[in-house]
Every structure is written in C-alpha cells, then in structure tokens.
C-alpha cells in the first residue's frame, strides 16, 4: 500500500516539474498544512513561518525543473523548508551575534498529558512537577519526537532533516522516551487510565 502511494507521489512530482499546475496544487494541498504546522513549532512568530513557507513554495515552483526526484517528497520538503526558515531567522539575527544556526530555533511541543491535566484540573502540584520534567527534554529531543510521532517519518529521514547521523536520530527519540517514562508517566499512570479506556 505504501509502495503505491510513493509511486503516485513520484508521478505527481514529475508532472509538477514539467510545469503541471494541477500537480503543484496537489502537492500544496498535501503538504502545505503539514509544513505550516511544523514551521509554527520552530519559530514563535506564526506569520513569519507562514511568509517563509509561501516564499519557499514560490521558489520551489520557480526552480522546479532543476530539482531532483527525492526519495520521500515529504522528508525532502520538510528538510528544505526547515533550512530556509532557519536561514531567514538567522538573517534577522545575524548582526547581533553569530553563533551556531541551531541556537536560533525553539521547538514548541505540547504533550497530550499536559492538556489532559489542565482540562481536568488535576491538582496544582502535580502539574508543576510535570511541567518541570517536560522542560528537561531538550529541543532536539522534542523535535525528533515530533518528527517521528506526528510526521511519522523514518529515522533515516529524521537524520537528514536535523542534519545528524542515523544513530543520533534514534538516540534522540529513545533517550526522550526513557526520560519521560522514568520521570513522570509511570507516577501519573492512574490519572490517565481514564483516557486509555
């Protein structure tokens, strides 16, 4: 089933490269929401993420005939957009201090359990403790979790996007999960049994 999907995607991509507007629209409908969602987690300014995304797609259209056929269109778009976004963000920053590109983004991720606790007015102390443990996750861990769980990408693709090696990508996810399990989930297990059933 997955194979068919990727063949379909490749056909769409090739028509897009030949200048087919319908194919371009199809790609936009498929990936614009996903990318916007991701971009708005990387930068705090939603409008900024959106402007960058529009410029990104316009650029994509303008140089469509020079592009390769990526193995996974989704991963390709995410990683190119991430680069464009962070570059634009760094440009806004650059005259203040030149540091590693990676310092200029944050990853906004809220876990289901937080919302659940807030909604059900679980006692204050538990929430504070949980918030603390969540904050011990690094932004790279959060991003890796997000790419794996919400974007459902393979580790190979995650490593490409985050510009790290395959092994580090796996480690980011595993370390984050271990941290979560050790620190809070088990102690809060019973407060969430209601959503499980």
């Amino acid at each position, binding site marked *: 089933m997955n194979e068919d999907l990727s063949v379909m995607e490749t056909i769409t991509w090739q028509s897009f490269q030949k200048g087919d507007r319908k194919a371009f629209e199809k790609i936009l409908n498929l990936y*614009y929401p996903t990318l916007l969602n991701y971009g708005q987690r990387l930068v705090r300014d939603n409008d900024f993420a959106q402007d960058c995304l529009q410029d990104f797609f*316009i650029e994509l259209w303008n140089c469509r005939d020079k592009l390769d056929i990526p193995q996974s269109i989704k991963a390709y778009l995410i990683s190119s957009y991430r680069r464009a976004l962070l570059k634009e963000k760094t440009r806004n920053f*650059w005259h203040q201090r030149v540091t590693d590109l990676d310092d200029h983004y944050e990853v906004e991720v*809220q876990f*289901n359990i937080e919302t659940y606790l807030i909604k059900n007015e679980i006692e204050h102390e538990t929430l504070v403790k949980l918030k603390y443990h969540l904050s011990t996750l690094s932004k790279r861990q959060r991003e890796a979790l997000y790419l794996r769980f919400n974007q459902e990408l393979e580790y190979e693709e995650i490593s490409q996007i985050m510009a790290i090696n395959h092994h580090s990508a796996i480690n980011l996810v595993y370390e984050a999960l271990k941290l979560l399990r050790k620190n809070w989930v088990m102690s809060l297990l019973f407060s969430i049994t209601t959503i499980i059933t």
Partner: protein
Amino acid sequence: MNKLEKYQIEDFVQDLYFRKWVLKKLSSKDCFWENWLEQHPNKKMLLEEAKSLVIASQIEEKTIPTQQIQQGIQAILNRTESKQQRLFEQTWFKIAASIVLIMAFTFLYQKSFFSVPNGEYLVLSKTTETENNSLQPLSTKLSDGSVVTLKKGSKLQVSTDFGVQTRTVFLTGEAFFEVQKDPQRPFIVYAGGIVTKVLGTSFTIRAYKDETKTLVAVRTGRVTVYQQAGTNDIEHLGQMLLVPNQQVVFEKTEEKLVKTLVEKPILLFPNSENSQFEYDETPISKVLTQIEEAYGVKITFDADLLAHCNLTAVFQNQETLYEKIEVICETIQARYEVVDGQIVIYAKGCK
C-alpha cells in the same frame, strides 16, 4: 516475528505500526496486535505500559483554520500564476522603487540644507567647544582642514594647542571624523575612556556618557586605539591597531578593548575589478582570498581542508560581506565566527 519478542517498552512506543494500533488509526480488519497479544500473554503488562506511554507522549496537533490554509495555498498559486502576472507585479515594484528614490533624494537634500548653514562649514578657533543640539548631524571644519560630523547631543572640545605638536580633541557622544593627513602632528581623540590616534583617515567614534561602551569603527586608513590612563596622559595600557571595517569596543566597567568587525563592512575600492564577485567552479580558497582583499577583512580558513571545494555563484553588490560568507558556508557545509576582527571559517571539507 522474533524481533517483537525482544522489544522493550521504548521499542514499542516508537514503533509507528504499534502507535497506529494504540491510537486506533489502523483499519478494523487489521488484527495483528490482538493476535500477537494472544500468542504472548506474558507481554501483557509490558504492552499496557507501552500503550499508556504512547497516549501520554502524544504531541498535540496544532489546529490551523482551514480558511487560513486555503488562503495561503491560493496566495502561492496566484503568485506563481503566469508571466503576465509577474510583469504586473514588476511594474508596481518599479513605481514603488521610484517613489522611494525620490523620497530619499528629498531627504538627503534637506539634510545637507540643514547641516550646512549658509553653505559654509563652521570654522572653529582653537579653544572652542561645539555642541550639536539639533536633530541633524552637524559638520565642523577644524583649523587643519579635518572635518568632524557630530551626531545629535554630541560635544567636541578642541584643545588650545591644537595643531602645535599634536592635534588633540575631546569627544562626548558620537561623531564621524575625516582627518587630513599630517604625519608630523598626530590627530588624537579622547573619548569614553580610550584614546584614538591617527595620522590621516576616516572613522567613527561613539562615546555617550550614559552608555557602558565606547566604540571606534574605521572606514579608511589605520587607527591606533589605547586605553586611557590619566586624563591628559597618553600612557597606554592596552593598544590596538585597527584597519578598515574593523571596530573596537571598550567596555567601561571591565576596562577591556575588544576588536570586532563593523556591522556592515564596505568595499575598499568599490569600482575596482577586484570588487566583482562572479564565480564559476572557482576554488573556495581563491574566492575567500578575493573577498578578503576586497573588504580588507582577514578570513582564516584551513586551505588543505577546502582544497576540493568549489563555488559557482554571482554576488550582487548590495549583498553584504556577511551574506556572501553565509552563502559560501551554506555551499560547503561550514559555519563561521567573527573573532578578534577576523572571520574564521570552520569547515568539514568537501568530497
């Protein structure tokens, strides 16, 4: 499947197929996990724990209004529509640019009109003190022919023996100096805790009393900056030589001089052949050396590492030095830092 039997909790949680099952995203016909559980009853606890972790560690989806998404997609489609569309945009762009240009000229005309009363420079006698209380910069010509342009709220004092052995002035606030060449009599500026000594150059000093920093930025020529020991004393603690496009920042509290680059380095000879930046498979080391000469800014890099790196690009003149360096770094997967008035490139090398 042997692999699954060895699975730990984390392995299950990160497994996309398992997650789909927990989150009820699999088709109802797919009973793989139910069957597996039946065959491995001893794994029930493990699986339960993994299930709760999947649910708890689910990341909230942001909801973006459909309307906003539709508008966004439509905007992209419109802006990539046809050539006519783009031409239309360009016409508008041209008109807008013309208006901006006219406004800029008007502004410049007014600026020069205000700063040069009666079309003459104000010539100072030797003991004077000049203060600029207006909003426009005020240009002052000293008796040796040097011109000092004072920003608003800045004050220049000229010592009584100006031009005898040295040419000494005192500055509070910010000013741009264009100093006449006179190797016999150095031009010395006391400002914000530091002493700046030049023979004939142009540079800016920023030394407001209420700011914690003093700054000297060099446009042309060479400038020497000292830390000031006594008020009239040129016994220098730290000494630093600055060349064009470098600047020095003096932290008043820490009493330390730090050399950096100016915010927007300019080309030393904008019209020379060396200020064209067009590359076709040019070795990176050659590119960097040319940029280094064009801006007079030292660029440090490992020539051996970059031996196989090439660049094909055309830079426009309005692109700043930093933008050029950024593009190069992007191409060769490197990063850069500004250290001690130099640009240092950290590269991994190319295949």
